[in-house]
């Protein structure tokens, strides 16, 4: 279990992390979501004892990281933002080094074999790390975190810079690891966090903006009620028909994408999924739908939404 209490880090005048508190239960995968410069890496560096906090406390399985760093660090496998790889070593000799460095007590050969297999790097074990692709390097970085089988894994943006296929592989692996590890994973990609994590902490400008289960967050930021449709048919008629639907907040058609084909931006009331209604309209009027997609929510939208939501709740509280 990881307990973080009022963690704060100042760099000079700058507050990189400001009064963050949360706990991660055993066997939970916690997602740390925030844009660049939010303070994700700084927090993780404090959790792993790489840097000290200005104030606040970090307990790893009950051990204070600053009071008994050796004991606390022994529980953690850390993959920093830039994996700490010695480029002139082979994968195998590097992992052997990490094994010795962590004073690992497990049977060496079988443990290394397991880790190599799990991270799918057994085919490159004798290659120099500098000759590996970015995806392989990242997996070697993950492998060094797994050496010694620590109960807590802290992974700082493990999929950054990977191609989509590699991203999926790493996510699947993390999900698998989450079954018997406590994991903290940071990312600036919403969908990644939704896919992998049980619980999400959204952090911006060094403060926690939201701390919720992944499902509840998904509901909050669901965008099924905001869609873009490209439809063939008479523009005015289409606009009228859509406006006539239940619970439409606005609809507009600003762009003629192809001759006679306009793109319609539609927002319905939150929670109302209008995709089927649009389809039905098209069928009835013999309009052709050439494209339909939900509007992606950017991180910025999410922050706006979440902070606005908080204001509303605050307002309610004050009214009581």
């Amino acid at each position: 279990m990881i307990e973080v209490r009022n963690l704060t880090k100042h760099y000079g005048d700058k507050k990189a992390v400001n009064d963050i508190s949360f706990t991660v239960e055993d066997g939970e995968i916690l997602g740390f979501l925030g844009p660049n410069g939010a303070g994700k890496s700084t927090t993780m560096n404090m959790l792993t004892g790489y840097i000290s906090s200005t104030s606040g406390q970090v307990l790893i399985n009950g051990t204070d990281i600053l009071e008994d760093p050796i004991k606390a660090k022994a529980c953690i496998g850390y993959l920093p933002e830039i994996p700490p790889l010695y480029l002139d070593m082979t994968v195998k000799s590097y992992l052997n080094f990490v094994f010795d460095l962590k004073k690992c007590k497990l049977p060496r050969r079988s443990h290394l074999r397991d880790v190599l297999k799990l991270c799918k790097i057994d085919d490159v074990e004798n290659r120099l790390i500098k000759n590996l692709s970015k995806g392989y390097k990242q997996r070697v970085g993950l492998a060094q975190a797994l050496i010694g089988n620590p109960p807590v894994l802290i992974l700082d943006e493990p999929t950054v810079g990977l191609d989509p296929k590699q991203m999926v592989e790493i996510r699947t692996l993390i999900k698998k690891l989450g079954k018997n590890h406590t994991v903290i994973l940071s990312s600036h990609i919403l969908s990644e966090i939704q896919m992998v994590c049980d619980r999400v902490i959204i952090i911006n400008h060094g403060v926690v903006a939201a701390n919720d289960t992944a499902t509840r967050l998904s509901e909050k930021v669901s965008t099924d009620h905001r869609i873009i449709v490209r439809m063939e048919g008479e523009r005015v008629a289409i606009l009228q028909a859509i406006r006539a639907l239940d619970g439409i907040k606005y609809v507009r058609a600003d762009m003629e994408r192809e001759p006679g084909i306009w793109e319609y931006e539609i927002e319905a009331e939150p929670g109302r999924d209008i995709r089927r209604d649009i389809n039905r309209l098209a069928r009835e009027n013999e309009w052709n739908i050439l494209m339909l997609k939900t509007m992606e929510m950017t991180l910025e939208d999410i922050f706006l939404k979440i902070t606005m939501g908080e204001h509303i709740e605050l307002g309610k509280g004050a009214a009581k």
Partner: protein
Amino acid sequence: MGAIYRREIGAFFTSSIAYVFLSVFYIITGFFFFLVNLGNSSADLSFVCLTMFIISILLIPLLTMRLFSEEKKQRTEQGLLTAPVPLTSIVLGKYFAALTVYAIAASIMFLYGVMLSLFGTVAWLTLLSNFIALLFVGAAFIAVGLFISALTENQVVAAIGGVASLLAFLLVHFAASLVGNYASLGWLQSILNFLSFYSRYYEFTCGIFNLSSVLFFVSVAVLFNFFTVRVFEKRRWS
């Protein structure tokens, strides 16, 4: 400590720094050995020992320059500093790796001794005390070089800084003799003499084994390794 020591020894040889260090060390001392000892049929190794001392100043930074600066630059230090090991053992692991390569270099002295013994008698005891002195001087110099490597992430800066600091230790000796011209500055001269690596080492080449000098070298080594540990503690808290 063992893991870091073994990795560094490996890195010294795969990066060929060890080969460069050893070959330059052997070529220069070998040159003076042939010139002074074999050329003049002299069994007195003191001059060769002095050249070893001087080139140590120029070559030791080559050994120490990358030890910490490269870790910082490649961000590998994050792996070391978040591993469940004390800072001291990280610093000492690297320190003893460099000292080992240095000891391999310095032990060439015994080969020179054996070669001389073919032609005449060799003062083995003096040679041994010379070797020990050289080892302890190196121990102090390496600690200084390692400390400087911990201050920067640029190898070249670490190397130049290392040579400059070690030269400063040598200059203390000349400053002492300069100050000696003024009777009123006697106190300063004794301080400078106390700090002079050169005059302390010179005694050994003359066959005098001075235990207090050995202690002096060891203290400098301990002090600078302590400073290196402090650099990392301080950086973590900044």
